[in-house]
């Protein structure tokens, strides 16, 4: 069964419709890439999945999003639990201006974990998962803003993994990184896929082709096409997708 099911999702900023009748299923333990020109609703869509989009004043949402079969827009949904389960990696690395240690355990503390030994165990596990432990184990007290861009983005992923989410939403996570760092993060994603479901937004088609199992193409708020990545890139069904991936547009 799909872990995320989106049904007839419409999203409005005031009167402006940013998402139009989106329907899609996202499978567990796969990487789903969302591509498309900028301004066509990819970020908005991602933020509907952890309900960060409706924090903005004046927006309205209709349709349904089921995660593990539960409608996350149903009244009475526990948003804190939802956001623990569905985590976001942002476009720019954004560690808190705190120590490496405090960054990684931030979410754990917020969810009530106090025991220093439990915190430490999760800290190590999270930093190991993003391959930062060896580099940073002697620098845990250092301010995270002093790390390199790639280290910061890894740290942000570690901070997220610490709270043990099931779904990782990544909004152009490599757009502030150089090529080498991008490749490293992509490798990391391939590893993380074994334990997490990943939805990544990227405007970089090569990246989508490299890392993802499924690719969806957004255009002007519509999900034009979605399918197996290889198939979408070799035999797109919609002419608009073909225009985009062959570079005739965007």
């Amino acid at each position, binding site marked *: 069964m799909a872990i995320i099911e989106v049904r007839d999702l419409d999203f409005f900023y005031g009167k402006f419709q940013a998402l139009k009748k989106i329907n899609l299923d996202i499978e567990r333990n796969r990487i789903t890439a969302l591509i498309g020109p900028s301004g066509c609703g990819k970020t908005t869509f991602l933020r509907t999945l*952890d309900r*960060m989009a409706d*924090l903005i*004043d004046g927006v309205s949402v209709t349709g349904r999003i089921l995660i593990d079969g539960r409608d996350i827009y149903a009244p009475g949904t526990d*948003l*804190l*639990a*939802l*956001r*623990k389960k569905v*985590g*976001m990696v*942002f476009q*720019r690395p*954004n560690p*808190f*201006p*705190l120590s490496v240690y405090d960054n990684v355990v*931030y*979410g754990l*503390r*917020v*969810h009530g974990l106090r025991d220093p030994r439990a915190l430490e165990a999760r800290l190590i596990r999270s930093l190991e998962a993003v391959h930062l432990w060896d580099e940073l184990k002697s620098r845990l007290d250092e*301010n995270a*803003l002093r790390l390199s861009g790639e280290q910061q983005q890894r740290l*942000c992923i570690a*901070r*997220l993994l610490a*709270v043990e989410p099931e779904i990782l939403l990544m909004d152009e996570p490599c757009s502030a990184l150089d090529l080498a760092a991008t490749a490293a993060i992509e490798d990391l994603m391939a590893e993380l896929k074994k334990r997490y479901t990943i939805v990544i937004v990227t405007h970089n088609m090569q990246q989508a082709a490299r890392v993802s199992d499924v690719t969806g193409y957004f255009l002007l708020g519509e999900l034009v096409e979605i399918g197996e990545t290889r198939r979408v890139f070799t035999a797109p069904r919609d002419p608009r997708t073909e225009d985009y991936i062959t570079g005739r547009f965007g």
Partner: protein
Amino acid sequence: MRRLAPSAEEKAARAGLWALTLITVAVLCFIILFILRRGLPVLSFEFLTANPVDMGKAGGIFSTVVGTVALTVLAVLIAAPLGVGTAIYLTEYTWGGPVTRIIRFGAECLAGIPSIIFGLFGFILFVTKLKFGWSILSGGLTLAFMLLPTIIRTSEEAIKSVPPEYRKVSFSLGSTKWQTVTRVVLPSALPGIVTGIVLSIGRSIGETAATIFTAGSALRLPTSLFSSSRTMAVHFYILAREGISMPNAYGTAAILIIAILGINLLTYFLMNRFIRKYS
């Protein structure tokens, strides 16, 4: 008139701005030196630790130092939580609706009211209506009201300058608003908030009009919140105005200036260390 060449204009601007800055610094130094030259000779350990004798003609200023500290501490203890709390509410918990605008407008009006009006207000409300009498309590409450707008304003600015990403990340990790405010927003905003509080400490130490009507001008050492007490600034004013003792007036002023400079330097130093640690 012919326009100057850009490079000449740049040079002229540089020289002009330099001159303006120099004037500012010169005026400041002049005031400080003027006071210190007349005040420092009077200062001694005795001057600080002895109570005034004979209306202040002789003896020291100990009771007025105690009065000043007590009033300031009380005022800040009341105004800081109220002001910072209001600022948090206005910036984090409301979306600039009409209520917010009215509160903000009210706070701004409050900031423009001369301190003597606060003095009269405090006199009527605390001294007479609530029967606290001329006391540290009345004076502290009055000062607190006077400081409130500044603290709200500076805290709001400090909180607003915290990058919105921090909040977004915090929410996306499943934090509540309150957790986000206390763990991310306030620590980042702290230097700004503290600066505002220090400014208001400086203001309350130097305040005369608001305290003379509410804390009174008793020279005895205050023993409780209900004691009337004279502050250093009021003491200076009375000594100078009634011609009781100009040397002692300048001595008091010198202490005031040193205290305010000291507080500012200390805060500057602490904030620098804090900022280095957190950014």
